[in-house]
């Protein structure tokens, strides 16, 4: 009996399977080294160049810190153009997103072929960064607001269709079955049961896409797609950093305002 009481504490054996951690660390290390080899396309890590540039950069930072507010009136009309692009892109994408979302969600489209096709196209659409679209579309359609509008339209379509169709997939649809039992066609069921149930999901994402649009449209002009970004790029080209910082401050204010409005609206939707 006493032997049992004094038996030493039996600790469980430590896991000896350390190789996953070692392997992961080694893989990260090798990948990092490969990314630092300029010979195969990696980045040339050169801190001395940074130091050399810095004396040059310090004067620019100094200029940026002295915004030239006299420039403000000239930024108003490009800023309105930017906002117009954002709103129009979001609105057109909102309309087109409804049928596409219904095609891409499982409860509203039982046909796997068309569903996967729409999802595949949307995934490809989402894999292209926004400014890459803008660059190619500017080359296609010419400099101006039209490529910007089309870019935002395509970008929003990807965001809304992907997020809303996934939300529809993961939510319950108790009325769908009753629609089927009543003998409705899929289109009728979608119209009567699924859409009324999903409006808040849609409205939420439309507002979110508008928010994103304001952020993106401010920079689209850098590649020639109209709006305030074009002015930003132009002033940067002229080395007028005082004007550049005014534009950046203005973009910042507009983004914060739009996000505050959109967040307030979205909170009311819930």
């Amino acid at each position, binding site marked *: 009996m006493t032997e049992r009481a004094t038996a030493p504490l039996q600790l469980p054996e430590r896991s000896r399977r350390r190789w996953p951690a070692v392997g992961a660390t080694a893989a990260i290390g090798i990948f990092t080294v490969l990314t630092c080899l300029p010979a195969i396309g990696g980045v040339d890590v050169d801190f001395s160049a*940074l130091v050399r540039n810095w004396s040059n*950069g310090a004067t*620019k930072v100094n200029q940026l810190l002295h915004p030239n507010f006299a420039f403000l009136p000239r930024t108003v009309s490009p800023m309105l153009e930017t906002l117009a692009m954002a709103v129009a892109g979001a609105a057109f994408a909102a309309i087109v997103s409804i049928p596409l979302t219904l095609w891409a969600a499982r409860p509203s489209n039982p046909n796997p072929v068309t569903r996967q096709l729409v999802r595949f196209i949307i995934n490809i659409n989402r894999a292209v960064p926004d400014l890459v679209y803008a660059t190619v579309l500017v080359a296609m359609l010419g400099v101006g607001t039209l490529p910007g509008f089309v870019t935002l339209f395509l970008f929003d379509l990807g965001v809304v269709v992907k997020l809303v169709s996934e939300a529809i997939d993961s939510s319950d649809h108790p009325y769908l079955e009753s629609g089927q039992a009543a003998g409705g066609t899929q289109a009728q069921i979608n119209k009567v049961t699924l859409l009324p149930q999903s409006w808040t999901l849609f409205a939420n994402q439309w507002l979110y896409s508008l928010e994103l649009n304001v952020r993106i449209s401010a920079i689209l002009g850098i590649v020639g797609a109209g709006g305030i970004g074009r002015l930003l790029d132009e002033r940067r080209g002229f080395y007028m950093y005082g004007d550049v910082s005014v534009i950046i401050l203005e973009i910042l204010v507009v983004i914060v305002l739009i996000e505050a409005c959109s967040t307030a609206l979205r909170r009311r939707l819930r």
Partner: protein
Amino acid sequence: MTLTSAPRRAAATLPVPPSRAPATILAVVVGVIILIATAGLDIEWTELGDVPSRVVNYLQLMFADPNWDKLPRALFETWRSISMAWLGAIGCVVASIPLGMLAARGVGPTWLRYLLRGVFAIIRAVPEVIIALILLTVTGLTPFTGALALGIAGIGTQGKWVYETIESAQEGASEAVRAAGGNTLETTRWALWPAAAPALMSFALYRFELNIRMSAVLGLVGAGGIGSMLANYANFRAWDTVGMLLIVVVVITMCFDLISGSIRRRIMEGARPRGMDRSH
């Protein structure tokens, strides 16, 4: 008295239907804003009809016969973009984990917490391309400065994710370490870090995914990599090469999303249990 007369039915008092005026006003206002915005765009809307046919024409030029001769060069530039994204992600994660931890409630001093959260909020508010553009103007247009810009531009969001993760993780464990006599540093090491590490690793990979997209964009403004190559060939209207480059961008982006996404799932959900059957 007539027995046949039915008792008078009480007039049905239906509740007043809710006013639809606010919804109608809202719809009209939204409609007017959209109309003004659409009219304000400097677009010939009659031209919009032939945009699809023009785009289809260009799509044929791009994808009917992509120019695969430039593929080695494209892959070289792609690796440069990926390197930028990776080094930027490492820089961002290495900087944001300690900063985000200091910004979490209960770890750093209050004044530092508000200061760091303010800095994160400001960085988040500015579009990443603009931060990168400022940094590139200051430090010069090289892939290295591109990676640096990616690292700094991501700190706002990454830092927020870190402190939110830490705050949602600190419950019993940190209290236990403190009760055993651990100071703040030991609490962070033995209670917060083990609880938050999987989520933080997952966010780090997600940062890499985001950076792959951003690095192509930075290339467009001149930092090098696949974006710069794309911008050049698009400017020269070399459509067959542009088509090939777009295919490369899409395939590479989707591949990395797939790999990184499955690793993230593995980190967050853990491995499937192995060797747990009791047959032996």
